[in-house]
């Protein structure tokens, strides 16, 4: 079993739809949770960064972390064709000596927003 599970999709939605992306994880040491967006032939671009549990909102994006269920989500409101990309969840632990802030990534979900 992988440490971080993410459905690779592809997920295809019409413009304006609300998109829900999810990851589950098994390592209870994870304390930092991130969502990255990756366009074709580009590097991952940080979208959201959360420490521990809770919700965080930034414009059309909302990140949720439920540590009791080991489940994180990213919601995109009013989705646009420019949101079409691969979305990667990533996590890291706070034990520097053991983990050294390495990110463990999900497989990435391909999102296509149709105009």
């Amino acid at each position, binding site marked *: 079993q992988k440490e971080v599970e993410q459905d690779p999709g592809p997920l295809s939605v019409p413009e304006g739809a609300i998109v829900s992306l999810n990851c589950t994880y098994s390592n209870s040491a994870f304390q*930092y949770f*991130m969502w*990255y967006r*990756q366009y074709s*032939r*580009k*590097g*991952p*671009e*940080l979208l959201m*960064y959360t*420490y521990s549990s809770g919700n965080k909102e930034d414009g059309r994006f909302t990140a949720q972390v439920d540590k009791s269920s080991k489940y994180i989500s990213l919601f995109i409101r009013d989705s646009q064709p420019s949101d079409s990309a*691969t979305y*990667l969840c*990533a996590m*890291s632990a*706070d034990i*520097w000596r053991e983990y*050294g*802030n*390495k*990110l*463990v*990534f999900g*497989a*990435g979900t391909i999102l296509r927003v149709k105009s």
Partner: protein
Amino acid sequence: DTAVSQTPKYLVTQMGNDKSIKCEQNLGHDTMYWYKQDSKKFLKIMFSYNNKELIINETVPNRFSPKSPDKAHLNLHINSLELGDSAVYFCASSQRWAGRNQPQHFGDGTRLSIL
């Protein structure tokens, strides 16, 4: 100004050759990383350096040798290239601040193809 820059962007070479990839960050971060993204787009940590000290070596073959001449640079040298080394290699950087790991910022990758 590009925050994390890698050179070259593309590298096509023959099996058995030795090659280097360079990375520079101008964010003032103290930790730098190398990740490998395989053909299925899965991103995995290879190495991490903090203040020029090797922190993570994630069971990478000895043919891969990272070198950090200073905090702003982390280079990756690969000896005796093999077909399985074909991938996209990403450099990233981050800062540890107030006892917490801050998010990592990625370059746009080096696409390595072995003939």
